[in-house]
């Protein structure tokens, strides 16, 4: 007995002195809906929520039952934090700076580092205050900045790369109580933990979906010594110890918008309250913040009480290309490019180009696709990998469509030139002669590359032409006029191929323009993710009409993204939030909805559906 006690006693002492594993904060509580693209979320010390709406540029605090506006007019505010004084630090990505705003709305400080040895920030996505430090995720520069509380630069951590201590598009940062810095290293699909002086301590995770693995982690929180990560493309929250031990994961992918009960859809940011009783998840896609409470084993997951899960459930992302009979869509979650023959009653998937291994077929974040029907080649631009891929696709005859997983063959992979900053490339257009135009969201410049990715030219920044901050979003080639159109906020810039601005016009009544396409007659189509709609303009920017409301039914959208027009002037819209593609006439008449495995047209809608063929409008 004595011997046994002596053996157990140290173990008991060890167990008692070890911190207990953190319980999940995973029981659904309050949901705050109707927020305009909330990317930033934080708690005040008295447990009020603060959020930044990236669509509208509003900064708001939840005072009692109401949201109170603290500040407005911010340009793409993303990550936020509340400092010891109660002021809010905001990563104002669109102006490449950090703001400090008190809860009465007075902007007290601006930090931009552009006149310091650090050089300017580019598209910062997150900020965290810790004692006398401010830590910034300088996302567009692939680094972490450590500033003092007056904004003076202290040190830089990391650079672009995949090695230990390097980053690819770091978009979240948190500081533990002891000063360790945890970074969501988004396009490396991992979390890295550093000592305050920048020495790397741990790397956590790699690409994957099993517990402990990640897919584009975004927001991060380290309250209470637990690192919690918004695992964006896995639609879940994961928790780790600072030395990398997996603790728990929770969340379930919302297959359709507005599924509640803990289902999560592209979580962008998380914040745990100081008392560790609440965890807020910002889901810009769902336009909501869900607040979770400490784990309640008695909680019963009430399945969605609305319509059953049905319809088209693919994972179409925002990137698309179309020419002739072929449409190619990128699925970020599954890392697959799907190739469809769309000139049929129901589009047929001909092949899938999937990510495989660590070699050239390892896809990251595809920001542009271009299907060249003349040469049977698919061109891909991968911002995460900093690479360009060319594929040859041997299509079957139009009257003999068949699926063949081996139809596409990778012909070459090339690195992007060193002059480009891949993490800042938001979109790209390719002209029929093989010239690429890459849109840099960090400085508004266009990098012109030849077919072998050789740098041909860099256009001057768009901000040479306007006074207020730019938010370049998309670029498209207009083949009829052989010009490039660049969408930036509610403006369209039209450039000739040499980079001379030929037109600049405003698009009225837009909230958050996202993507742009040109129709056969020169009409310009723009998706508005803020208004869940598509608007058609003439070639001079005069509004012709718009269609779409928020929803999940046919002809409705949930944050529509990519848009293309075929030779018959049919408009294909990637309905990103609903994970599907919808096809319309130029006037907005709905023609079809399809995904990877199912399609709907007016002929096969249920009886009584208002869009069914023969129904009276």
């Amino acid at each position, binding site marked *: 007995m004595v011997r046994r006690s002596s053996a157990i006693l140290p173990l008991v002492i060890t167990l008692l002195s070890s911190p207990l594993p953190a319980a999940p904060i995973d029981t659904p509580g309050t949901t705050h809906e109707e927020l305009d693209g909330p990317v930033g979320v934080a708690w005040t010390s008295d447990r009020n929520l603060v959020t930044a709406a990236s669509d509208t540029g509003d900064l708001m605090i939840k005072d009692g039952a109401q949201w109170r506006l603290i500040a407005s007019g911010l340009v793409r505010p993303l990550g936020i934090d509340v400092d010891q004084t109660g002021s809010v630090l905001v990563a104002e990505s669109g102006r490449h700076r950090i703001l400090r705003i008190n809860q009465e709305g007075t902007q007290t400080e601006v930090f931009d580092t552009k006149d310091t040895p650090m050089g300017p920030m580019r598209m910062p996505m997150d900020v965290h205050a810790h004692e006398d430090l401010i830590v910034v995720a300088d996302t567009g520069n692939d680094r972490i900045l450590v500033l003092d509380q007056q904004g003076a630069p202290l040190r830089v951590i990391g650079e672009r790369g995949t090695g230990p201590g390097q980053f690819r598009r770091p978009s979240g940062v948190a500081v533990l109580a002891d000063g360790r810095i945890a970074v969501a290293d988004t396009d490396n699909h991992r979390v890295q933990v550093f000592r305050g002086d920048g020495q790397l301590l741990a790397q956590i995770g790699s690409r994957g979906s099993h517990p402990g693995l990640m897919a584009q982690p975004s927001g991060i929180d380290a309250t209470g010594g637990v690192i919690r990560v918004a695992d964006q493309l896995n639609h879940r929250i994961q928790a780790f110890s600072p030395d990398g031990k997996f603790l728990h994961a929770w969340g379930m992918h919302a297959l359709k918008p507005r599924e509640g009960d803990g289902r999560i859809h592209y979580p962008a940011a998380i914040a745990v309250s100081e008392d560790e009783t609440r965890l807020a998840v910002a889901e810009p896609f769902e336009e909501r913040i869900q607040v979770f409470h400490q784990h309640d084993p008695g909680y019963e997951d009430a399945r969605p009480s609305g319509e059953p899960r049905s319809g088209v459930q693919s994972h179409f992302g925002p990137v698309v290309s179309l020419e002739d009979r072929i449409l190619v869509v990128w699925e970020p979650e599954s890392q*697959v490019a799907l190739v469809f023959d769309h000139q049929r009653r129901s589009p047929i998937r001909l092949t*899938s180009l*999937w990510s*495989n*291994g660590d*070699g*050239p*077929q390892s896809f990251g974040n595809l920001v542009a696709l271009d299907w060249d029907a003349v040469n049977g080649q698919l061109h891909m631009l991968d911002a995460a990998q900093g690479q360009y891929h*060319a594929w*040859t696709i041997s299509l079957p005859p139009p009257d003999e469509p068949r699926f063949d*997983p*081996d139809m596409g*063959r*990778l*012909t*070459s*992979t*090339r*690195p992007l030139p060193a002059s480009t900053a891949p993490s800042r490339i938001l979109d790209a257009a390719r002209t029929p002669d093989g010239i690429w135009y890459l849109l840099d969201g960090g400085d508004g410049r266009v990098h012109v590359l030849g077919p*072998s990715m050789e740098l041909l030219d860099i256009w001057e920044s768009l901000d040479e032409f306007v006074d207020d901050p730019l938010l370049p979003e998309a670029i498209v080639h207009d083949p009829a006029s052989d010009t490039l159109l660049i969408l930036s906020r509610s403006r369209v810039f039209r450039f000739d191929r040499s980079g001379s601005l030929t037109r600049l016009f405003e698009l009225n009544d837009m909230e958050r323009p996202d993507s742009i396409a040109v129709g056969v007659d020169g009409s310009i189509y723009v998706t508005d993710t803020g208004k869940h709609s598509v608007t058609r303009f003439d070639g001079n920017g005069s509004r012709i009409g718009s269609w779409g409301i928020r929803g999940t039914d046919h002809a409705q959208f949930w944050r529509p993204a990519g848009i293309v027009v075929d030779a018959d002037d049919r408009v294909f819209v990637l309905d990103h939030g609903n994970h599907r593609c919808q096809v319309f006439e130029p006037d907005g008449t709905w023609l079809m909805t399809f995904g990877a495995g199912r399609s709907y047209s007016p002929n096969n809608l249920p009886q009584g559906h208002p869009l069914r063929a023969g129904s009276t409008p």
Partner: protein
Amino acid sequence: MQTRLIVLLSVILLTHGCSTPGPGSTERARLHSGLLSNDGTFIVEWETNPDPIPVNEFFVIDARVLDAGTGSPAADVMLSVDAAMPQHRHGMNHTPAIERVGPGHWRVQDMLFHMPGDWVIYFDISRDEVIRRAQVSIEVD
């Protein structure tokens, strides 16, 4: 007696059960010539040992990379070799080891097709930071 049996089993395992067939294997390999890279820049000549490729057994690929234009060995390239089952959307569950044994000449050990079916072998050839691919489809049963 027991010791002698263990020694005998060890010898059998070392000669037949190791991960890679030995270089002295008498099984005759078939040279596959004229595999053109997908963009036409290179030719890959390759053979496996054993041949045909067995299911769930390690095998070796001997590969020579030639410039398609001149037919001479591409001495200035790097080669990596991988394989996958596109219909199943998975690759090998074992990482092969590749070794350069001469100008444009490579030996890939510990290839493993762990299940029967349609496999594709990828030869990724790097020169001046540009990667070009040659590939071949193989049915393994």
